């Protein structure tokens, strides 16, 4: 039994933190708000060079062959920095899906390109209904010759405007199947859906008679359900890690502020109303840490309770992070409500991740199915 990180894992976390402290300061996050693409190519290149973009892929595909625990360490740091960019979309959604279900040719084509930063992938997992259950898919794929024609509308597709390929489920006679689509293909339109977290770019993806080749299919026809279930499970834990990072940043900022901000002639941190709130925030953050890394380990190890742990993580951390980041604004008072102060960057990142890959309610229902 060992719930602590190895020396290598600590080294990884420290190097990610150091790089982001240097290259992903709040000023960078703010600069990217007005950038059309929304992320910095210099930092992206650095991420490729440092091996973060290929972290979970096998070495034969230019990856580092590391697990979900390591990936979560990186994602926690990205949340802590409110990193704007397609890391999650490309590495977690695109990369892990292909790792699990891609053909040898698909892996060879895409994984090294993701790892080197030359290609960006994403996945379109929800439609109008916002249902994360793949069975809710309405988009269709109709046979045309050897290939298919796709039609439908996907919403909240992260970083689709810069993606080279989008993984998406569509209904075929065999059931719901997965396809890899170039968003620049004829018949695809990409419309931004700007949200409160400008560092998370979403789009609507409209597919109007989009022709794809037979090689576009990912996994067996009708097999999207189990592939996406496994992907959403990992993505839910990854999103939890990122929320954890944002929450810890908010906690640290609150504690630092409570030590120096004086009212009634004393630091506000000396008042129990503030101190107790900070203590509750720390409890929520530490519990979230346990939830995230237990789930990450369980998925890596193929533990019996891995699926349950993933749902526990997303159900718990979604609400804990919301509470902690919100409490941080409250501790700060007026300054925390200004655009100029950085707190809202992390508050909004946690909020943006809250509904993704199933919100707390979605996962609580899954938990009860496991237990009852």
């Amino acid at each position: 039994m060992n719930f602590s990180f190895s020396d290598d894992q600590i080294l990884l976390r420290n190097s990610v933190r150091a790089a982001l402290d240097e290259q992903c300061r709040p000023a960078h996050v703010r600069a990217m708000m007005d950038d059309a693409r929304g992320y910095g190519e210099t930092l992206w290149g650095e991420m490729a060079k440092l091996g973060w973009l290929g972290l979970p892929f096998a070495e034969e595909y230019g990856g580092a062959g590391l697990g979900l625990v390591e990936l979560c360490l990186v994602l926690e740091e990205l949340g802590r920095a409110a990193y704007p960019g397609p890391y999650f979309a490309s590495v977690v959604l695109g990369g892990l899906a292909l790792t699990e279900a891609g053909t040898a040719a698909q892996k060879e084509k895409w994984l090294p390109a993701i790892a080197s930063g030359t290609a960006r992938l994403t996945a379109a997992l929800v439609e109008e209904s916002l249902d994360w259950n793949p069975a809710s898919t309405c988009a269709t794929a109709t046979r045309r010759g050897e290939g298919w024609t796709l039609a439908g509308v996907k919403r909240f597709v992260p970083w689709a405007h810069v993606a080279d390929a989008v993984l998406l489920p569509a209904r075929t006679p065999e059931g719901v199947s997965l396809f890899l689509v170039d968003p620049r293909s004829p018949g695809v339109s990409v419309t931004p859906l700007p949200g409160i977290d400008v560092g998370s770019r979403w789009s609507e993806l409209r597919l109007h008679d989009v022709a794809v080749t037979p090689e576009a299919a990912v996994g067996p026809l009708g097999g999207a359900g189990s592939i996406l279930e496994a992907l959403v499970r990992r993505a839910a834990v990854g999103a939890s890690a990122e929320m954890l990072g944002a929450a810890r940043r908010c906690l640290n900022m609150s504690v630092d502020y409570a030590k120096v901000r004086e009212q009634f002639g004393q630091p506000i941190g000396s008042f129990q109303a503030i101190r107790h709130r900070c203590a509750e925030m720390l409890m929520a953050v530490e519990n979230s840490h346990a939830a995230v890394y237990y789930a990450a380990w369980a998925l890596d190890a193929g533990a019996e309770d891995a699926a349950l742990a993933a749902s526990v993580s997303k159900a718990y951390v979604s609400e804990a992070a919301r509470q902690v980041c919100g409490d941080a604004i409250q501790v700060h008072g007026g300054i925390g409500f200004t655009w100029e102060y950085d707190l809202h960057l992390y508050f909004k990142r946690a909020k943006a991740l809250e509904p993704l890959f199933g919100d707390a309610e979605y996962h609580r229902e899954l938990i009860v199915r496991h237990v009852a």
Partner: protein
Amino acid sequence: MDLNYTPEDIAFRKQVRAWLERNLPREPIRTLAERRVWHRRLYEAGYLGMGWPREYGGGAARPMEQAIVADEMARANAPAPTNSLGIGIVGPTIVVHGTEAQKQRYLKKILTAEELWCQLYSEPNAGSDLASLKTSAVDGGDHFVVNGQKIWTSSGAIADWGLLLARTDAAVPKHKGITCFLMSMRQPGVEVRPLKQITGSSEFSEVFMTNARVDKSDQIGKLGEGWAIAQTTLGYERGGRSLARVTTYASQYHRLLDAARRLTRHGRPLIDDPLVRQKLGRIWAELEVERYSALRVLTQLERGEHPGAGGSLTKLSYSEFEKRFMELAQEILGSYGQLIDGAPAEYQLQIDTAVGENGTWAYAFLWSRAGTIYAGSSEIQKNVIGERILGLPKEPRADRAGAAR
């Protein structure tokens, strides 16, 4: 990071489980004498005082082994041993701060439950502000004379001895004038009155000391060191019951699920009601998080690190969780949850709570109110977390500088 149990731990768990299958009392334990017999059997098997040094009768076991024994006992719904304060607090205090003579005199009999112990800390006017305690110990030559009143003394009614905090110097600031003693409860100057709680039972007592006597040889540490000693010993037992606690919660939760399958609203079983499912899902998520956190604390203990103020996070988290859990149990069970006797078997808890032996939901519900008060209320824990972990400034206090009175 590897959250698998080692082959040694798995083998040890099997061994404990097999022992419990062979040795678990067939009949419920009703008397103290019967409990002492059970205690003695556990001790002889090496399952008590496991973390104590070998030279004083302990097993020098790893924290994980201690946690596994407690966990397996919870799984088997085994009766608790007795003398929990003796083994958890008093013994370790004597091991660290006692003289060799004190160790020889007291330790073995704590482990065997030949002598039962209580802790004489809280007073009517010294609860969260424990250091303001007023019970006095006055030098009487070869002994001290003790006068005062203690309250919330668990096991007070059955204890032979008590670990006492008393004021030996009222002229110095309050934290500096307290001394720690071992006091016989079996003497004319000590009167114990059971304290009836909201549960209707009396796990606690009030203790009145009128010219009670403590030999000078029974002073622990130096004069005026009592506060510091009490601080170091408060956290000794943390972690040992961490897994067991969650296992008990899980057993209780499954009993609750059974009830939710039988009970209906508007003709529909509660277990099929999405609102109830949401609440059940939330509690199970929190329960699992408690389990993960317990494993995290055990990792620290296994590495020889003391969680220190981190213990406050653990205690705050599980005690507040337990209240939420029991509130939900009441919500689902409705009036069944309030029955103190005669509940149909389907709506009985049938699982011992950590302290009480009364396996009703009503008892467990009422008892959950105690957890956020005893051993440092949630408010005190949050102060400790804020000051000692987060480094937030202390609240300006009126009582730091001056004399105790």
